[in-house]
């Protein structure tokens, strides 16, 4: 047990260690006073904390709402609506995340909540689409034999459709994470902080060290989240 837990956490711990090493190194070896001011343990932790909150809140919201709406749209009565929504989602996906942020800035205003809402809406798209597609693509023969054996629609959904759609839903969630981690670095443009703040400060001051610290921490965050979700998926999906 301890051994499997270790194997499970080995990669994330390694990545976290890498993040710590990068942070400690850059904080202790600033190239000049600007870097020293921009990169302190406080500023890095604040940006990281803001970044994680941005991502976690928007991702959890997106997973809950995306999966629920995806399920609803996959019901036979809403199937055609679902097809329509799928198209809208595909178009929505092509709007740059910066534009979504800008849209919500002009409509609602500034700050963390606006950024979370924009990220949430943006991350919902792949999750919703994949949930819908995953359920719709469960073979008819499987659904029919489940019906024929006397399973209720709800039991079919929970015992057959969702488990079979699970790998596709997870793929959607992983896509959303990748999108989210990129878009979250833009949240700083509307005063929502996050690791993007380090990146943009570094860019505007032409201090690569600040940019690299922010960017590598953002990348590590995304890789760790993706890895953990991949592990969960491998644990759950044993039948392929």
């Amino acid at each position, binding site marked *: 047990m301890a051994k499997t837990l270790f194997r499970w956490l080995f990669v994330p711990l390694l990545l976290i260690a890498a993040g710590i090493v990068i942070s400690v190194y850059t904080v202790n070896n600033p190239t000049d006073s600007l870097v020293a001011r921009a990169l302190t343990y406080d500023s890095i932790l604040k940006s990281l904390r803001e970044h994680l909150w941005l991502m976690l809140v928007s991702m959890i919201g997106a997973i809950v709402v995306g999966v629920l709406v995806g399920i609803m749209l996959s019901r036979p009565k809403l199937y055609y609506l679902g097809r329509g929504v799928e198209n809208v989602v595909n178009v929505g996906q092509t709007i740059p995340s910066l534009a979504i942020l800008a849209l919500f800035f002009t409509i609602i205003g500034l700050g963390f909540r606006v950024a979370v809402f924009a990220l949430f809406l943006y991350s919902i798209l792949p999750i919703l689409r994949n949930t819908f597609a995953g359920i719709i693509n469960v*073979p008819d*023969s*499987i659904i*029919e*034999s*489940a*019906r*024929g*054996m*006397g*399973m*209720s629609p709800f*039991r079919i959904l929970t015992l*057959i459709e969702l*488990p*079979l759609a*699970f790998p596709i839903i997870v793929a959607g969630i992983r896509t959303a994470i990748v999108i989210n981690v990129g878009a979250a670095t833009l949240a700083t443009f509307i005063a929502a902080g996050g690791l993007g703040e380090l990146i943009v400060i570094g860019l505007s001051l032409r201090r690569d060290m600040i940019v690299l610290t922010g960017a590598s921490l953002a990348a590590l965050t995304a890789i760790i989240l993706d890895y953990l979700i991949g592990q969960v998926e491998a644990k759950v*999906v*044993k*039948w*392929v």
Partner: protein
Amino acid sequence: MIKIENVTKKFPGMEIPAVKDLNLEIKEGDICVLVGPSGCGKTTTMKMINRIHEPTSGSIYIDGQDALKMNPIKLRLDIGYVIQEIGLFPHMTIEENVATVPNEKKWPKEKTKKKVAEMLTLVGLDPELHGKRYPSELSGGQRQRVGVARAMATDPPIMLMDEPFGAVDPITRAKLQNEFLRIQERVGKTIVFVTHDIDEAIKMGDTIAVMRDGELVQHASPNDLLSAPADEFVSSLVGRNRSIKRLHLIRIREILSDLDRPKPAKVDTSVDDIRKQLDESDIRSVMVVDRDNKLKGIIGINDLKKKTGEQAADYIQELDQSVTSDATLNDALSVMLECGEGYVAVVNEDDQYQGTITLGDLLNVVKEDE
């Protein structure tokens, strides 16, 4: 047991009804095979019995009760259901698949577990070996067996089977058919069986309902269907070579006891004795069994020319195929044609030698018939 009365089914958007004013009665313990070309309404008819499709008009009675007034979920829980694509749940193990209906009926865990093992054994699978596997890890034939085991797990009195042996090769299909008939002899379910294959219908059915364009053309026993087809359509369906089709109706064990066959040799019989036995009769080969009467192979007259040992065991040629005594004569014929031989060895379930059937025996049967 099942009574279909004036049932019509019209799908939305379709001009012509899929099933027209159908009347059919199926007796308890019978296998009724619905047969006909695709689009004839046979599958629709079957699926109205468990209300996967709702009839547009008419009534269906099961055990005297109006099925259309029952809760469809409760109705289905007591009707075994096997469809053409089998529809095993790929994300569940074989055990979990077979436990589907017991779980829906909220059986206690222990009871379910026992029943699952029993069902897997019944269809010839090893619960220990196969139970924990996923459907993708089984062969086509094994999956068909699981489909049958799953449908029968709670001993439903009625079973609906839509081409359940459709997706496997002919030899495996014959084997599955025979096994299923053997099981049916024990359990005596009322079965509605859909197929487009008239040979399968003749072999499996106690009665055969021939359908065309949504209407019932003839409902009769296989024998009556062969000897007195109701019209041109039925006689073209059963084909001209009805005598050969009759081979489907006769099981090997029915003729095996009347045949006079040389005793099989034992593995430790001396070569000289075998040579003597062959010389004294006009046969050219002899079957060889071990001490438990299990079939080991065959020795032909030519094999003895090469001197390789003293005992029969040293000369044995292995056999590619054998048939069980509850297979039909048609199965025996298939195996002979497949192997390119004029005979086939007959064994029981434990692989013990029962006798040999030759092409001549089959010819005699067909001749008697005419």
